[in-house]
Each structure stands twice: as structure tokens, then as C-alpha cells.
């Protein structure tokens, strides 16, 4: 059966297996059907050798978190992300995918998402939300408005993050402003990047959202993103659409830490917070954008201590909607992360991705966005100086 995978890309894997231990699902299962090499071999069996899509084969593909940690581990440069995305898209179209399409519909409709979020927030307060959804922090019923302060940079606000974690946006904006940049929040002009749609295999919808986002953010100003998942998706519009326009757009996209690391001298020197901070690298920052070092560059001047986790950037199990779709596997993966965090003994974990921070917070970890930490240091010092 044709999975819609480019044969040359599929053929690039030499089956050396050097990816196995980088894969969170292999790490917790020791099962090769849940490893990148195994999944690629199964793609070949199905696409090249006509093997049937049995329950186990589908399960192998469904359990992939799409963290893409196998890509930097791969010396052959296999583009695993594109292989699994094509596979998921084919599976989604076979299944009809309408349930997911319906579930994802609010993401690109800010008012619907907002209304749903308020209902969810109320349900949460009435203890009506099942624990498996992993919502730990309370969804806000009221949000401070976003205001533009200039046109030096766009600040990408996205969908769920804007509804549930607007405080992170406000903190991000204040930090950018402290570095002297005028900020224009993207708001309803670009309601959703389409990352979750790509992951779920809803290709056409993802393409439509990419076009809409590009139309909504004209000009040459950098598009600064504080969600690792959104940033990775926006940076991949060039691949998704395959046009020069999309490639030019993607070239403007920059992770907020990546951006500030280039301008770190523009931030005021302040008293560091008395915190031992462990940096959790979101997969889509470390493995896809490969822009995880800047988080440390930006954080270090603002905290007493910045420590590393000892798990070589292994996924936390959040994976966009993965923690809801595969709660069992996501929980096992998170256990590994929790034990690594335990060994690092931090006061707080810094995570530059909303999905990761919610997933970790649901397990009782104190998590904050790096921008919230920097913002707090800046604000405390401003207050002290007053």
C-alpha cells in the first residue's frame, strides 16, 4: 500500500540502529516496533512489499511522539519527520480523520476556542475535568488584553497558548520590550500555526492554516515565537508548502530565546533570582529547531544557577496532543523525565513549550517558561530600584 512516502527518503535509512536509544517510546518499551528504525522498516514492508496494515503496524505508527530526537541521532540524515508525517496523513485519510478534524476545529477559531476554554475553566473549577486530560494549571477565565507596542517584531500568539497561557505572552512581550523592541502580537491575524494538524496527519488543513498565517503576517519583521512546537512548525512552512514565499516566511521565524540570545547585551543587568533552574529542552526546540542552547544563554544572567538534566534531551511525553491520545505511553515517558528532574534537584524547571509545561505540571513539577523567569527578575529589580 502506498503510504505516500518519497521512496528516496525512505531508502536513506541503513538500519544501523543508532537512533534506538534516542527514541522515547523505544526507551520505555524496548520494543523495536516502537523505534525509529523499526517504524521505518515497517513503512518499507507496507509501502514496498505490500504487507498489510495490521493492528500492530498501525500501533507502531500511532505511538510515535514525533519528537524527532532520532534526526540529530541519525548519521545518515534520514528525514524521519517527513516519513512519519506522510504515514500519519495516509492513515488519517483512511480513517476518515473527521473526529480529529472536528476536535481540532476550534484551534483556528479564536472565539470558539475562547468560549470552549472558559467552559473548560468553569468545569475545572467544578472538578468535572478528568485527570487523564492532564490539565493541572487552571485555565484562566479572564485574560489581560494584548497590546501592540511597535513594529520591530511580530510576537506569535497562536491558539491554545493564547487561550490558556496568555501570561507567558505578556511576560515575553515585556522582556522583548526591555531589550528595546517594539512588539506587535499576531492575535487573530494568525490564529493557529497548524502544528497539531501536521502531527495528526491532517495535511490539507495544515496547508490551509499555513497560507492563512503567512497572509496574516506580511512584511519583513522577524516573527518571534515562544512556543517551541509552533516555532518548529512555522520554520517548516517552506517544506510544507514547497514555495519560495513559504521559505522566505520560514526564514523570518525565530524562537524568542534564539532571538534574545543575539541581543542579550540589550537586556538590563539585574540581581539574579535565587533559583536553581533545570532546563528542560522541548523536543521541537532541541531536535527540530536545534535552538536549545540560547535558552541557557538568556536564562543564565537572571538566575542563581542553571543546571542540565542528565537524560540527553529525551522527550517528556507531551508531544502536542500525544499525552491525551496515548496517555499510557506518555505517562511512562514522563516517569523517566521526572526521575531525571529528581536527580537535578531544581527549584523550578524552565520549559519553552506550552505542551511540555502542562504535561510536567500535571505530574506536580514546578514549571515556568524561561520568559516568565527572566520577566520576574527584571520586574523585581525594577521594583527594588524604584
Amino acid at each position, binding site marked *: 500500500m502506498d503510504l505516500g512516502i518519497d521512496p528516496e527518503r525512505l531508502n536513506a535509512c541503513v538500519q*544501523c*540502529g*543508532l537512533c*534506538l*536509544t534516542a527514541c522515547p517510546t523505544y526507551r520505555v518499551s*524496548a520494543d523495536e516496533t516502537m523505534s525509529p528504525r523499526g517504524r521505518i522498516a515497517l513503512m518499507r514492508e507496507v509501502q514496498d512489499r505490500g504487507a*498489510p496494515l495490521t493492528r500492530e503496524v498501525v500501533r*507502531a505508527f500511532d505511538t510515535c511522539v514525533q519528537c524527532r530526537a532520532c534526526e540529530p541521532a541519525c*548519521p545518515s*540524515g534520514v528525514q524521519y519527520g517527513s516519513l512519519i508525517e506522510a504515514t500519519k496523513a495516509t492513515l488519517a485519510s483512511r480513517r476518515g480523520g473527521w473526529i480529529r478534524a472536528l476536535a481540532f476545529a476550534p484551534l483556528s477559531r479564536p472565539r470558539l476556542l475562547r468560549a470552549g476554554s472558559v467552559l473548560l475553566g468553569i468545569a475545572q473549577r467544578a472538578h468535572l475535568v478528568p485527570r487523564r486530560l492532564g490539565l493541572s494549571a487552571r485555565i484562566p477565565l479572564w485574560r489581560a488584553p494584548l497590546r501592540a507596542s511597535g513594529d520591530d517584531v511580530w510576537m506569535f500568539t497562536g491558539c491554545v497558548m493564547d487561550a490558556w497561557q496568555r501570561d507567558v505572552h505578556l511576560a515575553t512581550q515585556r522582556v522583548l520590550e526591555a531589550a528595546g523592541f517594539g512588539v506587535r502580537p499576531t492575535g487573530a491575524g494568525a490564529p493557529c500555526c497548524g502544528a497539531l494538524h501536521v502531527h495528526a496527519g491532517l495535511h490539507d488543513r495544515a496547508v490551509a492554516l499555513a497560507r492563512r498565517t503567512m497572509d496574516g503576517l506580511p512584511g519583513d519583521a522577524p516573527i518571534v515565537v515562544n512556543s517551541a512546537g509552533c516555532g518548529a512548525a512555522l520554520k517548516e512552512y517552506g517544506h510544507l508548502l514547497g514555495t519560495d514565499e513559504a521559505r522566505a516566511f520560514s526564514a523570518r521565524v525565530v524562537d524568542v530565546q534564539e532571538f534574545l540570545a543575539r541581543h542579550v547585551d540589550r537586556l538590563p543587568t539585574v540581581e539574579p533570582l535565587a533559583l536553581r533552574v533545570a532546563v528542560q529542552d522541548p523536543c521541537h526546540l532541541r531536535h527540530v529547531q536545534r535552538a536549545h542552547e540560547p535558552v541557557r544563554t538568556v536564562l543564565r544572567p537572571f538566575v542563581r544557577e542553571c543546571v542540565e538534566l542528565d537524560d540527553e534531551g529525551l522527550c517528556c511525553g507531551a508531544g502536542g496532543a500525544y499525552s491525551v491520545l496515548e496517555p499510557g505511553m506518555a505517562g511512562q515517558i514522563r516517569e523517566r523525565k521526572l526521575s531525571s528532574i529528581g536527580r537535578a534537584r531544581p527549584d523550578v524547571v524552565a520549559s519553552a513549550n506550552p505542551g511540555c509545561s502542562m504535561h510536567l505540571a500535571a505530574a506536580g513539577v514546578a514549571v515556568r517558561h524561561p520568559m516568565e523567569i527572566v520577566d520576574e527578575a527584571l520586574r523585581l529589580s525594577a521594583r527594588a530600584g524604584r
Partner: protein
Amino acid sequence: MRLASRTRPRRGVPERDAALVRELVAAVGAPNVRTDDAQRALLRRDASVFDGGDAGPVCFPRTAEEVQAVVRAARRHGRAVVPRGAGTGLAGGAIPLGAPVVVSLARMTSIGEVDRDARAVWVEPGVVNLDLTRHLRPLGFHFAPDPSSQQVCTIGGNVANNSGGPHCLAYGVTNAHVLAMDVVLPDGEMARLGGLDPEPSGLDLRGAFVGGEGTLGIAVRIAVRVTPNPPAVRTLLASFSQVRDAANTVSAVIASGIVPAAMEVMDQRITRAVENYVGAGYPLDAAAVLLAEVDGLPDGTAHDADAIARIAREQGATEVRLAADDRERALLWKGRKTAFGAIAQIAPDYYLHDTVVPRSRLADVLEQVYAIADRHGLMVMNVFHAGDGNLHPLLLFDAREPGMLDRVHAAGADIIEASLAAGGVLSGEHGIGVEKQAYMDRMFTPDDLDHQNRLRRAFDPECAANPGKVLPTGHSCADIQQLSSAARGLWV
């Protein structure tokens, strides 16, 4: 015999295995037995170029006792057992032949307390080599054998293949780092081989078992030596305009009395491929580069590094530089260790050879290797553990080209002939597996092989442990046809 798909049971193994599968489930629990086509299709292969065999039921035991129970169940049903770690072997040692029960040890990953007095630690076979070193590092130790696949390969696999690695030049291969083992013998009995005493009494069965490629039983607990981390490390990179100069430098360094921790050579093609992947600053215009590392006390390493640099220049090195910091060192080693995978940027398939020649003959044999590849119209790259004369020629090809595999095998045979003719041996560290079985009688006399065969039969009188490997056809346990006529699934 191939069953028609209409009569195939829904789950992948034949119905006549139902009783066996029930016993395996009783041994390890239902979630730890897999019989589906997908699982069996993946475990048909390892990282070698050989097309797979045929896996029977796959078990994932979690304890030594469960391994024992699996082996006993397989024996009761007259089925062979093939152990598997991470499946990174390059000689086909983990390929299941004759639909045996495949025992994956990847779920046995516990690491015991480090015994500082004995400088040893007991580990389970599924522990990943690099995980062990990471675990030991904060305690001031590491596990010295460091195969290029160390980020993935398991200690059990290292024991089975007596694996080496760049740093085995000074520290010795796996055999020098295994003190004792609990092994499940092919009949299901458990035995302890070796011991933590400096001189365990009796025959060195431990030594016989290491490198047994799963044909003597399954190691289920392994006491490995822990090596103290060196106080100082210096890594040099020397560039040469000829491969011969690099090879001669290696011999000259050893002849001068220095035993570096590692000495690795890569030729230009491989250097370019890895540089493209790691960006470590490897010179792209050099015909060959030598990566040499010395470790020990700071003054000693400084002295040795100077001496190696001087020798390299005398042998014609165009440039010698010292890695400035740990980051540069790590990048240089990452380049060396991912060399095999990195070549996939150039061709979709590769065949990695593994022969050893006397160090003094390195330069000559290398020239022959290039000539052999030319003769067969193949591209070859050379990257090797130069310090101990262990060659790793890589033949690059696209298996989809008709007739290509025959040319690759013919070139491989010529390389082996050239190595043996120079006084070398068949394998440095990858093992014999199915890859080099047919060459065993080129290396060993019938008498040698007979003794190896008898040792094997002493452990495994019924040919139940990884049959069809190592010993060539004609010796017992080498021919597996009679062992099983199990139905082949759709995947085969």
C-alpha cells in the same frame, strides 16, 4: 514450506506453536511475548547487510529466572533460542535462522552497586554501553570498551561479540573487562563463570564464553570491570597527504614505545562525509587523518602528545593540531563514531568489513583494498582502528542495482583474502556470525575447527543456541535446515 495466507492464524506464528507460546506466556507473562508479523519482521534482521532469517515467537524476559524459563520452554518444544540486544551487530549474529524463539534482553537494564574494592559492577545484559559509562562517570569510573555503536549497543551484545572500540588499544577489548557472568546454558541450567577474585580457580570458561556469539548460552548477569577516569586526556588530529603516511605513523608511534589510548585513521572520503554531519573541523583536503588520544597524568600526556606530533611530522604530516577543549574532543570523536552511518549521505547501502592485519602491513593492505574496490567498480572508504591494525573498509553501493550484491560480496572476499595473505585474521570485533562462516576454514585448520566445534557441543549438545552461526557448514550446529520446517510468515 509456505502456508497459504488463508490458513494462516490471525497472529503471526503457526498454530502448531500454540502450545509453545502458552508456555512462554506462563514463563514471562502475556505482555512480554509477541507473535505478530510486525514484531517478527523487525527481529529478522540486525544492522548487517544480510537479509533476514525467520523469527519464531519473541520474548522479553525481565529477570535471569525468566530467561531460564524461556530457554527451558523452548527446549521442551525442541526449538532453538537466539538472544538479541539492540540489533546493531554487523555480522548477522542476531539473525534468527530456522524460526527459533528470539529472546530480547533489552528489558533487562538494571545496574547494581559499584564494588569499589573489586572495581566491578554487576549489570544486566540489556544495559546500553554508553548508559553504563554515564552511570559510572559521576563515581569517577567508566566502562572502557567503546564500540562505535556504544550509544545503542548493549553489554550483553558486547560480551557475545567480544566487542572492541577505539579506546581498546590501550585498555583491551571486552574480554579484559568481564570478570564474571551468570549464564543460562542451552539446556536452561544457570552457571557462574569466572569470579571477582583476582585468579578464579579452574578452567577459564569465562574467557571461552566471551565472544561466543550466543552459541554457548545467554549471559544474564555480567560483572564488568570499571576503569577509573583518566585525570588528563589529550586528543591530536594529524593530516596527511597520503594514506600510507598515516598508516606508517601508527606503526612508528607504537615502535617508539608509546601506547596511546586510541589511534584511528579515516581517509578523505569518510572525513568529508562525517564533517558534513558533525562539523568538527576535520580537514577536507587531507588524504587521511589520524586521530590519536593519550590519557593519564597531565605531564605524561603532554610528553606523549608532543612525541606523537613529532613522529607524525617526521612521517610527512601536513598539519598536527591538539583539540582545544572537551567540546572539540567530543565532536572529533562523534565524527569518528558515526562514520558508518554518515556514509549513507553518499550511497543507500554499505558493507562494512572487519579484518585485522599486522600493523606493519597496514599501508600495503590498504593499497590492495583500494585496488580491489577499483577492480570491482565499487567505491570504498577506509576508517580503521589503526593502533591494532583493525581495518574497516566500507564498500558503498545501491542494492537496487542488478548484480550489485554479487560484486560487493566478491570484493569482500578479495579483501578477506588479502588480509589473510598478509598474516591477518578474519574479524577484529564484529564477530563471525553468518558473515564469515564460509571463510573460517581459510583461517583455521580442520583440527582447529574440530576443537572449536567440540567446545561448542560441550556447552550445547543439542545445537539449540543460536544455530547456523560461526562454525562453517559441515560442522554440527552449522546446518539449520533439519532443525525446523516451521512455516514462514507473509513477511518473509
